């Protein structure tokens, strides 16, 4: 019998979660449709002046992405918790952190990546310039994985609690403020002609930091939740 390597486990978990997401497409679509709806409501609500829309575009897209990512956090571990798969996951002979990382990556591919791909279309609604759109996408590409990773910690801590969905938003949203600031800051800098490198580099630093710490913290939180 072949032993599975650490990266074999990572691949297995990602593939599994993607197959499950494909068989439960409604869950994936709700996040995306929510994102599209919230962003599209703003031009209707605040009126169609192009100058104002251009100015608030990045902020609106980022806040909507933040809220949309909260929507799917509750599902990250709860299905596995309810049917006992999480118990078996605790007993993996390889690293639990690696398994958690796999779940985070799969969660991002299902709920974060579609938002990144959709953002340019929505940006056009706000009359964003091509350059600003590229920066927005770059920022979202760096930022949405952080949202998934920080969210995973919150989801693990609130696992099995009644009303955990609201609690996880209260826990996680404040922690995502830096991501929001640097993400919108980068677009603002691009519009005003300043250097965007500092904002994007800070986002990358946050991404690396989250990549190193959150899988391990999430694994510990899951162990506590399972007791």
């Amino acid at each position, binding site marked *: 019998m072949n032993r599975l390597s650490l990266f074999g486990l990572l691949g297995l978990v990602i593939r599994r979660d993607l197959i499950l997401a494909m068989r439960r497409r409604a869950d994936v679509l709700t996040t995306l449709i929510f994102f599209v709806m919230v962003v599209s409501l703003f031009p209707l609500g605040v009126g169609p002046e192009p100058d104002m829309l251009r100015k608030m575009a990045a902020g609106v897209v980022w806040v909507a992405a933040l809220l949309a990512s909260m929507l799917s956090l509750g599902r990250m571990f709860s299905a596995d918790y309810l049917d*006992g*798969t999480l*118990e078996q996951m605790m007993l*993996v002979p*390889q690293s639990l952190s690696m*398994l958690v990382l796999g779940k985070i990556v799969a969660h991002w591919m299902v709920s974060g990546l579609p938002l990144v791909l959709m953002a340019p279309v929505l940006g056009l609604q706000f009359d964003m310039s091509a350059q600003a759109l590229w920066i927005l996408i770059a920022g979202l590409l760096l930022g949405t994985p952080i949202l998934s990773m920080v969210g995973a910690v919150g989801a693990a801590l609130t696992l099995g609690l009644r009303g955990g969905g609201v609690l996880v938003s209260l826990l996680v949203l404040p922690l995502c403020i830096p991501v929001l600031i640097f993400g919108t800051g980068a677009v603002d800098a691009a519009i005003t002609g300043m250097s965007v490198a500092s904002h994007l580099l800070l986002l990358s630093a946050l991404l690396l930091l989250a990549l190193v710490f959150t899988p391990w913290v999430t694994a510990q939180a899951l162990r506590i939740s399972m007791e």
Partner: protein
Amino acid sequence: MLEISNLACSRGDHLLFSELSFTLAAGELLQVEGVNGSGKTSLLRTLCGFMMPAAGEIRWRNQNIRELDEAYYAEMIYLGHLNAIKDELNAVENLRINAGLAGCAVEEKKIIAALRRMGLRGRETLPVKVLSQGQRRRVALARLLFSNAPLWILDEPLTALDVSAVGLMQELIGEHLAHQGMVIYTTHQPLEVAGITTRRLSLS
């Protein structure tokens, strides 16, 4: 192999049991008995490391399981009340993932053979959600067939199973013990394995 010394376990403020000591050697079968709420499941979950014991120590091959951690998990298999199978996936996909989580990659041929032995011929590629409760349990139990872990921890393995499946379980446990395996289980149904004396541990 497995040594439990002075183990105590509590749920909240309620002490379930204390001063529990036993050892399990290769080829032994241990049934944990007790009334509802006496701590059978808690004992098994403590043995899996899900719960911290309130006192005492669990040792595997003379080392504390907390220190062994992943090395211990590679040598045990746990089957709880929940089947750990996904409704959206079919039996083969479920088992391949379960085997992957247990740390081994299994060929499809072996999985199908295991499912057929569990009496699920023709059900291999149906989504699990269309299977009955007993058939789902059989899918979950099929994991035992291609695991090479010496220690089996089974919590109520016979729930929802019919008479023929119970017979099959007795056979599986018998084979496992003959290969120097160890089994700890709880059940409210009689489960006797031919040629093996079941040790009983009573929680009160």
